[in-house]
């Protein structure tokens, strides 16, 4: 999976979970500060990401994923090692 594909998939998830339009989900955005996404929505995003990408993001990792790029990196790296 390329970064572009992960980003596009993540955009769809964020749109569905939090109602933030996918085109606003760009790599440098912070979930909390820029996209107004709280910790519960982050859990929903993690659950949806598992369904979409087959990558599990545990709660203890979730707090380290602050920007959209952080999630893209995490999914890409987990995908490689899996």
């Amino acid at each position: 999976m390329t970064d572009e594909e992960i980003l596009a998939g993540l955009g769809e998830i964020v749109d569905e979970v939090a109602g933030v339009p996918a085109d606003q989900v760009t790599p440098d955005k912070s979930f909390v500060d820029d996209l107004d996404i709280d910790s519960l929505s982050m859990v929903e995003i993690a659950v949806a990401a598992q369904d979409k990408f087959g990558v599990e993001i545990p709660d203890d990792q979730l707090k380290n994923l602050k920007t959209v790029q952080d999630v893209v990196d995490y999914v890409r790296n987990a995908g490689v090692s899996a």
Partner: protein
Amino acid sequence: MRLTEGAPATRILGFGGYQPVKVVTNDDLAATVETSDEWIRSRVGIVSRRIAAEDETVADMAVAAGGKALAASGLSPADIDLVIVATCTPEVMIPNTAATVATRLGIIAPGAFDLNAACAGFSYAIGTASDLVRVGSSRNALVIGAEKLSQWVDWTDRSTCIIFADGAGAAVVGPVADEADRPGIGPVVWGSAGDMADKIYIKDRNSFIIQEGQAVFRWATTALHPVARLACERAGVDPSQLKAFVPHQANLRIIEAIARKIGAPQAILATDIVHAGNTSSASIPLALSRMIERGDLSSGDPVLLLAFGAGISYAAQVITGP
């Protein structure tokens, strides 16, 4: 040996609910712990909750709700021979709550026991009562969910005191007389996950309720929609046919996330939590009572119940409006 003659099916004959008088708003809580109305509304969806008076017991609330359900059912106390009180916050462990409640309602010498499946208790109790009526162990059963969570909450812990509340709800379960009448209580789908016992617990009798909110949220939004869909499948009711979806009123965000995944956009979603808080085993019958009062539910309308909580325990079934 001779065995009992049962009934072909069961249905719910009436619901009743009771909430304490005292309303506690988010602003009331924000005056004593560091929180805000906006934060509580956005994270858990609660605007206000009801809290029992100091001297108001779980049994008092159970009697109030049970009496209303009995009246709504059209049966008299003499028709009831089984009383189940689902509660995880009984006043004392000995004696149980159910026998006392039965006596106070004028129900003479019924089978009476308490059932603890925490917030899943009401669906467990409906499933149990329905099966007992079907096999002929009981003619008609009174099922009550009643909780006084306020006495197990640390009122300085902002992660729990904003959520939990008090109340009671009840239903009368009776037989469907003949094959022509349609069954009103579908097969229960229930289960547990004891490996997650440490996610919601009270350590001992001197402690308060602890909840790992994020872990519970993840579990609830991942594991429960298949349970709900299976309950529909076993009952032979497609989610698109549901008139209403009444999940345990745990947290509005959880409820809405599960509802999205079940695929029943036409079903009325119970959101009683907004003004009732999380009342554990009482939340589903309270929400159902209110729906009937409002006229949202007609006789025969299929409704999906989904209860879940500490244990972890969960149960779901399709019922029809009384």
